[in-house]
């Protein structure tokens, strides 16, 4: 019964051959007759008034078709809106013009756009646009920005974007409880650059005959892009087609709608020629969103036995120069509400101050808020353990939510679906052979070697989500998902999903769901996505929602197909539908296996429509829109062993164990891949990555020669395992797994390094744990200079 084993099988990703062989079609591969190219003129200053823009030299450069500034776009391209206006936090939403108007606000802010016959001509001419700037002081540092008289947006006092808070219980009272100790630490979660392998691009074509405007765009959510762009361009939505062709990764950076997309779309209509823009890597570093960038003062109140009674967190979150599409939600609801993690913490208070600075805007980056929260929580757990002289595994175990307590509502008000947190912790410790590793550590210390063991127990909130709930948090859309499962007359199946996978592998997993449900061969199922013309509606791929939400819609659509097919089969076999059994893709009469029809035969009959039940419409397809009742909450424990070279400060990861629980697993190979990639990114934040600005707002890590993207050879073999606790939220029992690695890995590694350095009395170091930083701390601890 090969068919029934499709669900849960290690099926190789069908996407990979085309990706690996270079035969995939990305936005930049789209070529059209008469295509011309755009290049943006970008500000070299973080903050400056634009005195004058002289485009005359650029206009007369070879091949130039036009040079445009904000004045040319007036009334044609509206400001870019913010799509997640979180309520009750005094959110400021200053306009984000498609090209800079009187002021530039970060290095890379676009001032003008040049269109030319070739890409090289466009870039050459862009260099000839003469912009006269009056340079203004820049605010880069968040704490300074809040005090500064220099304002990024004149109408936003103190550069304060928002002041958001959540309060459950009473931290103060808990902290005053006799015997309770309060552990405090300032924690910096540095700014990261998402680094999708494909940079952003857009190709736009206007058909004056039909009045249709088609955009190929590097988007994780083409339908959202269509809604927003129809508003920005005042272009009727039904005449606007947005296609996200092959998209080479996003990690959140391709959720937002960016000014360049609107401008290029407009230019295609204006010039009546197709226009393409593809970002260079340098532009990607400057003009595509960054992630993280928090400074947090955390306090954890803990009883002598290790029971955590309270957590209070004050966080500054850097928004950069403009509000990106989903930015307000990231450091607020996606951060503050998840601060309880897998623990019972009765009193939680969180206050977040959002700050505008003259830096690249920030938004969702893999994990988006949840890695930041988990980092705070997991570092504080270790600091509390150290304060009390408890083993880090033990303090965690004492505070985990027990498995018989689900659904469990945490102090911040959200309700967790299902979990067996202790089991994942136990399994990780077992794989690690925790007592042995601790013994090795003790022996190593005798020899002057610095071994450290780090743990991170986490829970992630994902699979957004109930549209009503996200709507109440200010999200300007729904987060349900659509699916169509359609048989063709020859018995092949096409699946249309509103999600927009861009590397995650759902073309494979969704085919597995359908193959499993309908009993058709895997290769007979095609999964389509990313085109607003062929897909009813969709909200995209991010936040580990694609399989729990989109996959469920696919599953439900397949059920509808099965139901209809059964009625047709019953009619043609002249039995009652209740008397039919569906097995291996074939309906047969109960007790008479010879009397039957395959589902492919039924499909043909459905299209021929010669003999259908009275009143039934011809054709065989199912359509489902799934709006979940809750989020899903994957969880797990990561553990690692590191060694610090005390002479150089270098950190080496000796072992890395990950035990994740994402509910039922459709394809273990793909789940492992997601976990591996996530761990690589999480480890990289701990050890290598970090965007840095100078005080004038220049991005010092402006290329891959300065910004350290992790390399496969730097990672140890990853020892991955799973527990499986299905979620009751969806019929598949699946939770998301796209972000767990990034969420868990960062604190896991930092905890291990701090554990290694604990004999020196080093309590905490901020990331990235670059060798020099570690070396200086060691030297200082040993009584030398800092």
């Amino acid at each position: 019964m090969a068919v029934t084993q499709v669900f849960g099988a290690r099926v190789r990703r069908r996407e990979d051959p085309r990706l690996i062989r270079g035969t995939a079609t990305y936005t930049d591969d789209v070529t059209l007759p008469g295509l011309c190219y755009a290049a943006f003129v970008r500000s070299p200053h973080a903050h400056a008034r634009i005195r004058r823009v002289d485009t005359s030299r650029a206009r007369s450069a070879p091949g130039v078709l036009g040079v445009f500034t904000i004045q040319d776009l007036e009334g044609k391209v509206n400001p870019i809106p913010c799509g997640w206006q979180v309520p009750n936090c005094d959110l400021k939403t200053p306009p984000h013009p498609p090209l800079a108007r009187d002021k530039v606000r970060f290095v890379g802010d676009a001032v003008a756009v040049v269109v030319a016959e070739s890409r090289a001509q466009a870039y050459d001419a862009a260099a000839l646009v003469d912009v006269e700037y009056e340079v203004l002081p820049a605010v880069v540092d968040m704490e300074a920005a809040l005090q500064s008289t220099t304002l990024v947006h004149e109408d936003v006092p103190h550069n304060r974007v928002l002041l958001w808070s959540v309060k459950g219980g009473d931290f103060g009272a808990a902290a005053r409880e006799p015997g309770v100790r309060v552990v405090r630490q300032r924690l910096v979660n540095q700014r990261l650059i998402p680094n999708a392998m494909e940079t952003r691009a857009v190709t736009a074509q206007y058909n004056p005959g039909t009045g249709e405007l088609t955009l190929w765009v590097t988007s994780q959510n083409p339908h959202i892009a269509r809604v927003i762009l129809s508003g920005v361009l005042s272009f009727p939505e039904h005449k606007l087609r947005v296609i996200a062709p092959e998209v080479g990764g996003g990690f959140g950076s391709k959720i937002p709608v960016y000014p360049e997309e609107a401008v290029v779309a407009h230019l295609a209509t204006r010039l009546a020629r197709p226009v393409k823009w593809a970002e260079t890597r340098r532009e990607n570093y400057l003009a595509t969103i960054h992630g993280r960038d928090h400074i947090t003062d955390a306090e954890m109140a803990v009883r002598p036995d290790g029971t955590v009674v309270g957590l209070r967190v004050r966080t500054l979150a850097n928004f950069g120069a403009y509000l990106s599409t989903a930015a307000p939600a990231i450091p607020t609801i996606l951060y503050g509400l998840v601060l309880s993690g897998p623990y019972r913490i009765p009193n939680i208070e969180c206050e977040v101050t959002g700050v505008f600075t003259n830096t690249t805007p920030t938004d969702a980056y893999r994990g988006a808020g949840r890695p930041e929260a988990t980092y705070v929580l997991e570092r504080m757990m270790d600091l509390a353990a150290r304060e009390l002289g408890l083993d880090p595994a033990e303090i965690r175990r004492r505070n985990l939510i027990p498995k018989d307590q689900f659904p469990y509502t945490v102090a911040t008000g959200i309700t967790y679906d299902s979990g067996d947190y202790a089991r994942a912790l136990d399994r990780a410790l077992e794989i690690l052979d925790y007592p042995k590793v601790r013994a090795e550590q003790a022996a190593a210390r005798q020899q002057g070697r610095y071994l450290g063991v780090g743990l991170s127990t986490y829970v992630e909130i994902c699979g957004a989500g109930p549209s009503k709930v996200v709507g109440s948090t200010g999200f300007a859309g729904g987060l349900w998902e659509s699916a169509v499962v359609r048989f063709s007359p020859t018995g092949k199946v096409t699946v249309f999903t509103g999600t927009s996978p861009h590397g995650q592998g759902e073309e494979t997993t969704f085919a597995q769901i359908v193959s499993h449900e309908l009993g058709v061969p895997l290769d007979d199922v095609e999964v389509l996505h990313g085109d607003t013309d062929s897909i009813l509606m969709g909200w995209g791929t991010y936040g580990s929602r694609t399989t729990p939400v989109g996959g469920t819609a696919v599953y439900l659509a397949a059920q509808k197909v099965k139901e209809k097919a059964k009625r047709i089969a019953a009619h043609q076999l002249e039995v009652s539908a209740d008397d039919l059994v569906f097995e291996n893709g074939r309906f047969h009469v109960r007790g008479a296996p010879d009397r039957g029809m395959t589902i492919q035969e039924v499909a043909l009959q459905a299209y021929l429509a010669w003999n259908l039940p009275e009143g039934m419409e011809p054709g065989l397809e199912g359509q489902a829109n799934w709006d979940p009742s809750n989020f899903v909450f994957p969880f797990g424990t990561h553990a690692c062993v590191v060694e610090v070279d005390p002479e150089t400060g270098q950190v080496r990861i000796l072992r890395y164990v990950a035990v994740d629980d994402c509910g039922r697993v459709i394809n273990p190979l793909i789940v492992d891949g997601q976990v591996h990639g996530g761990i690589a990114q999480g480890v990289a934040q701990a050890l290598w990555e970090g965007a840095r600005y100078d005080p004038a707002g220049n991005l010092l890590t402006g290329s891959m020669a300065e910004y350290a993207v992790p390399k496969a050879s730097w990672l140890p073999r990853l020892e991955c395992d799973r527990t499986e606790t299905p979620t009751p939220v969806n019929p598949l029992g699946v939770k998301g797994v796209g972000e767990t690695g990034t969420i868990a890995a960062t604190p896991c590694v930092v905890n291990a390094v701090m554990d290694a350095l604990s004999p020196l009395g080093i309590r905490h170091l901020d990331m990235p744990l670059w060798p020099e930083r570690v070396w200086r701390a060691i030297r200082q601890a040993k009584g030398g200079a800092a």
Partner: protein
Amino acid sequence: MIPATFEYVRARSVREAISLLQQHGGRAKLLAGGHSLLPLMKLRLSQPEMLIDLGPVDELRGIREEGGSLVIGALTTHDEVANSPLVRERVPLLAECASQIGDVQVRNRGTIGGNLAHADPAADYPAAALALEAQLECEGPAGSRTVPASQWFVDLLTTALGPDEVLCRVRVPVQTKGQGWSYIKLPHPASGYSLLGVACLVTVDGGVCRDARVAVTGAGPKAVRLTKVEQALVGKRLEEATVAEAARLASDGLEASDDLYASAEYKRHLAVVYTKRALLRAAERAAG
């Protein structure tokens, strides 16, 4: 990341490359593996009007042994050097160095000639070339000449190569029995270049160090020999304490610059640590 407009020609011989260089003066640049030049052009930090591709020039390829030296054509890729049985046997220090350059893609394209001609302050080959006392053979309008590595590296990205000259071959004396060697580096986490790299070659006879050559790259504007360290080793047994003591001199007067990832102070410290480690490794190998 889009270079300025340029012309492109393929040279068929060293002669032709030289005459093209003469014709176009400072506006032309030679192209070998392109792994230093093209990134600069994409950032428009370098805007040559013409690229003269040395790719078709066969006389710049190949590795052969001649009179106690290996003669390595300028177009030999890092990968070829790293994996050549001849290099691995005769000049294992050079192979060890080449194998640590960049990543597989870089090693497949980058060339020894391009690397030494470019003289990046964090490149790896310069340290090995200094420690091995390599000779660089150049040809120009006035004929050929040989420049010892010690005189090749002039300053940041500046060498003794003349404007119309082509670096044709690198002549590396073969290592002898009793010599121990090592190349170790701390790679920059982003670029892969050396944050600090140390090459060393020690000659040990009767348990005593007769000759020591130590060179460091990555710290300052160019790779340099650490003569004080070398002198402190000659005539001594290469025991751990002796080596550690000599290595301490590595930072003495070492020019080092701050960068984003490592301060000058840290680089000087790394020079000491890496010198010690490289020497201990070399001493071990010398002992067989």
